[in-house]
């Protein structure tokens, strides 16, 4: 009996018991109840997670311990930006910057709902203020400037705030002579800010031109999914570009391409492995070795990075007290 069946049986038994109780008491509120009331499975759901790829039921805490990678099939589940930071950065070393750069509604955009309402809903459901978190942190004691996109916030779309926060991060990395790591997960440019979203592609790329001229390292990590204006700007400009296994990455979406060329696309089209085979990225890195790979890369490029402050090969934030996260 698989885990799934076990779980199902248990739920059925519970339902039977409950129905028995109701039968003993006659009726509830004077109504005969034929079907059992639904069992509240909030607790059960948080204990178990179904793998999005192989559908195996996994014990949630085991899955989290394995960095949200399915032990059964190796599928890399999407991470929240906070989970990503926790996995990648040395405990307590992350300092967020520009957290109060907040979205505006320059076009007074209304589709089926006002953009303003969408922003509020997105903030509520995702728990973050915009589709990217930026800041500084240490990776195995090496200081880096880090930006992590949040897909749960309007599909990780790039509007003015995402563009501004990336630009500010890159500018400060140039001043502090830090390597930059950007972790993308995005559907592309945000339509609700119209042309201003498009201009963020130019803005981030222009900032990366300055980083390039300053000869500082930029590592771009592409995660499930990265598309459109994000891929076609900062995400593809890394000195080193890496992707997580099976992540879907591309410019145009699969459906758009199929409609344009009127043919079915190969199954592995636009996956990280496909990109590697086509010479578009340097490597596909499993999450379990991600931190060490990034750390090694930063170390091997250290000749151009001059950390300020305590400079014994240790991070600039090494001596700082552990900060409580906001």
């Amino acid at each position, binding site marked *: 009996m698989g885990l799934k069946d076990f779980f199902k049986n248990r739920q059925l038994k519970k339902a039977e018991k409950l129905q028995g109780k109701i039968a003993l008491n006659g009726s509830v509120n004077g109504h005969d109840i034929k079907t059992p009331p639904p069992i509240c499975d909030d607790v059960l759901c948080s204990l178990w997670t179904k793998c999005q790829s192989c559908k195996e039921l996994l014990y949630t805490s085991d899955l989290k311990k394995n960095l949200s990678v399915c032990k059964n099939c190796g599928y890399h589940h999407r991470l929240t930006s906070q989970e990503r930071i926790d996995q990648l950065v040395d405990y307590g070393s992350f300092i967020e910057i520009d957290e109060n750069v907040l979205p505006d509604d320059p076009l007074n*955009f209304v*589709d089926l709902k006002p953009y303003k309402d969408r922003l509020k809903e997105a903030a509520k459901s995702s728990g973050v203020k915009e589709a990217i978190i930026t800041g500084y942190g240490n990776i195995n004691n090496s200081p880096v400037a880090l930006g992590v996109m949040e897909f749960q916030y309007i599909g990780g779309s790039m509007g003015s705030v995402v563009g501004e926060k990336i630009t500010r991060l890159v500018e400060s990395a140039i001043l502090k002579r830090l390597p930059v790591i950007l972790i993308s997960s995005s559907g592309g440019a945000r339509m609700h800010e*119209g042309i*201003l979203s498009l201009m963020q592609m130019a803005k981030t790329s222009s900032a990366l031109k300055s980083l390039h001229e300053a000869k500082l390292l930029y590592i771009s990590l592409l995660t499930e999914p990265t598309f459109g204006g994000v891929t076609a700007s*900062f995400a593809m400009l890394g000195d080193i570009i890496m992707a997580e296994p099976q992540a879907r990455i591309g410019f145009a979406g699969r459906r758009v391409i199929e409609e344009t060329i009127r043919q079915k696309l190969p199954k592995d089209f636009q996956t990280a492995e496909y990109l590697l085979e086509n010479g578009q990225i340097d490597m596909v890195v499993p999450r379990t070795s991600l931190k060490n790979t990034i750390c090694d890369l930063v170390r091997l490029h250290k000749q151009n990075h001059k950390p300020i402050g305590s400079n014994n090969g240790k991070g600039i934030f090494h001596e700082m007290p552990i900060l409580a996260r906001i």
Partner: protein
Amino acid sequence: MKTEQDVIPLDFEKPLIALAKQIAELEEKALNNGNKKIVNDLKNQYEKVKSQIYKNLSPIEKVKIARHVQRPYALDYIQLISPIWIELHGDRTGKDDSAMVGGLIEIDGQTLMAIGTQKGRNIKENQKRNFGMPSPEGYRKALRLFYHAEKFNMPVITFIDTPGAYPGLEAEAHNQSQAIAMNLRELAGLTVPVIAVVTGEGGSGGALAVGVANRVLMLENSVYSVISPEGCAAILWRTRDKAKEAAEALKITAQDLLRLGVIDEIIPEVEGGAHYNPSLTSQCLIAAIKKHLSELQKLTPSEVKNDRQDKIRKMGAFISV
């Protein structure tokens, strides 16, 4: 100049066509009857209707003008503004993409690099030009020409009229994203003046890849957008039929973009659109290019670069607490 009969009318221009027909018929009769008053009245009404239609064009109507099959394209403007045109071909690695054209032109004795997306006017031309949707090789050809311009200190003029970068299997396999991204980054770093002109459709990243400039100009009836109104409607309204609403919401007209500070100047067109009189439009275009060029050429190379980067840096609207 094209006469109005030569122009293929758009659906909102049909009342005008009906009136013009009526006038022509009556004029013929009037010649016999001497009934000139009715003809004159009709002509007045015609002018009234005409200016009413063209003055209050909705965004989606501007999209239709911008996509008009007779609208002048990059090569038309190049022929009209420069006595010489030497086209340069190929990305030097595998292909020459005809959806992107580039080459040398001369204005007032000064050499310029002209680069533009190029649509075709019929099926055969569009097979070659791919409806003005460049492949990665097209963007890499443009990049090669940017470097050429930088080396020989030539200002760059780009003409933008594209539905967007081509969404195809081969384009993805050859890394469309990287081709666009590299152009964005390298355009930001040029020390020669760059002037971009949106002449028709400015279709998203595929347009921006040749549009990072010191000055961005737009023809009066052109549009520039992060996504096509149809594409936006399909995603946000869940039906392509709402393209009209999407076109309004996205703020894609030259007038909107000037208000948003994304572009620097609107180049006027004749009533009805540039296709009614390409040569007059090109005269306005060349005057604007010369004006901006002379301003930019007062700057040193590093000032030119800073000017462009500062301009891009200011783009965006957010709240900073």
